[in-house]
């Protein structure tokens, strides 16, 4: 059977890996290519690059990093952040990304997802949804790193982009991101049960039990985490062993 995936995420700013606590107070966690190589050798199931460079001026640096990383890694690589046009997607795929994650551009114009899927195939189009709880059982989409509310219901939107051609949903709880309090399980489950494509749970991982909860209780197909791996708190192997002991099917390396 298919295995639950563990996906380390590298937040990349101006070509360097950083990870923030609720997007402020960034700490430098090193060279992205070196980190990617370490994760590849450690048996990470995929790798995610999130470009959080504020200006688009440094786009070339990201493409260089993607290119250098793709040269070193024999696992799938997803790249997101600031993807606005079909040309952006094409450039990232040609640089070596296997999947491209679309966030704000999909919210602004959901048809962009359809165009991208038609052009490059559904399998390489990931839609990243950043959601915040606004009331009991209701989550809204926020853009611009969680600062801009949109009034759009996260679950409806997940359904809509899936119908339009998203091949996967990367779901981040903005309430939990950087909190180490665990995934927003209710949100994860609501989205995972609503769509027919794989869902990656993101935002809030602080312990290995959180990874288990994301799959078992949140019904996610994959779990994404950043800081617990970057700062050496846990290894990929420890995470997989822990999940396996909780009867979650993982690929043991």
């Amino acid at each position, binding site marked *: *059977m298919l295995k639950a995936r563990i996906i380390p995420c590298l937040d990349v700013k101006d070509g360097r890996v950083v990870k923030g606590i609720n997007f402020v107070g960034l700490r430098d966690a090193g060279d992205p290519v070196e980190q990617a190589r370490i994760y590849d050798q450690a048996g990470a199931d995929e790798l995610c690059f999130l470009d959080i460079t504020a200006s688009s001026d440094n786009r070339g640096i990201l493409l260089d990093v993607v290119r250098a990383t*793709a*040269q070193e890694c*024999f696992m799938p690589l997803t790249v997101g952040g600031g993807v606005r046009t079909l040309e952006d997607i094409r450039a990232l795929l040609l640089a070596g990304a296997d999947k491209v994650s679309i966030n704000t551009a999909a919210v602004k114009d959901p048809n962009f997802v359809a165009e991208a899927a038609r052009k490059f195939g559904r399998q390489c189009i990931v839609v990243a949804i950043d959601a915040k709880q606004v009331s009991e059982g209701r989550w809204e989409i926020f853009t611009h790193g969680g600062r801009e509310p949109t009034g759009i219901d996260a679950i409806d939107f997940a359904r809509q982009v899936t119908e339009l051609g998203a091949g996967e949903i990367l779901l981040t709880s903005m309430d939990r991101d950087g909190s180490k309090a665990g995934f927003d399980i209710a949100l994860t489950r609501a989205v995972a049960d609503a769509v*027919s494509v794989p869902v990656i749970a993101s935002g809030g991982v602080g312990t290995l039990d959180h990874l288990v909860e994301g799959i078992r209780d949140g019904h996610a197909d994959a779990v994404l985490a950043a800081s617990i791996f970057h700062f050496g708190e846990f290894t990929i192997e420890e995470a997989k062993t822990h999940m396996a002991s909780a009867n979650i099917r993982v690929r043991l390396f």
Partner: protein
Amino acid sequence: MTTVIIDYGSGNLRSAAKAFERAALNAGLSEEIIVSADPRALSRASRIVLPGVGAFQDCMTGLTAIAGMREALDEAVLRQAKPFFGICVGMQLMAREGIEFGHHPGLGWIDGAVVHLEPSDKTLKIPHMGWNELVIEKAHPVLEDLGAAPHVYFVHSYHMACADKAHVLASTDYGQKVTAVVGRDNLIGTQFHPEKSQRIGLKLIENFLRWRP
């Protein structure tokens, strides 16, 4: 010796090329890896790789749009019997036809149709995306020494339903028996991505580079 990876505008071929380069290095082979859109490159190739991502029909259209490619492929693969490796949609193109928005002819090298996945468990997500275990159905030199319970990376919504079960060299379980590797004579094709399957994938490519069908 030269391995030619055919470039027909279907996705990024650098990752496939670098995986073949790394596998050749691991195997201690001085294999030259070339990415080419030129049908003439096939005549001096010792091995041929056909990658592919996206829709069956788009890929077939892209491949046959290159003047002389179809003929060069038939000549090198069918008549000269050079080892051939199809990856993902490149593997699907080996089939007789693809059934995705209508019926579309493939290369017709394996008697089978590429059909949508229909897992018995309707909660299973499509695309089938991620790492799944390879079940070897028929021993083959390219599938040797992959270790116990080898896992490889899949991302697809269609697979090849083969008319002759002897052509299914390996399968995987996803709410149905999914065709993972097909082959006959000098042909082999994987539904999964060996170039994204870490050491198991590299080992499989290494096996292909050593294979003398």
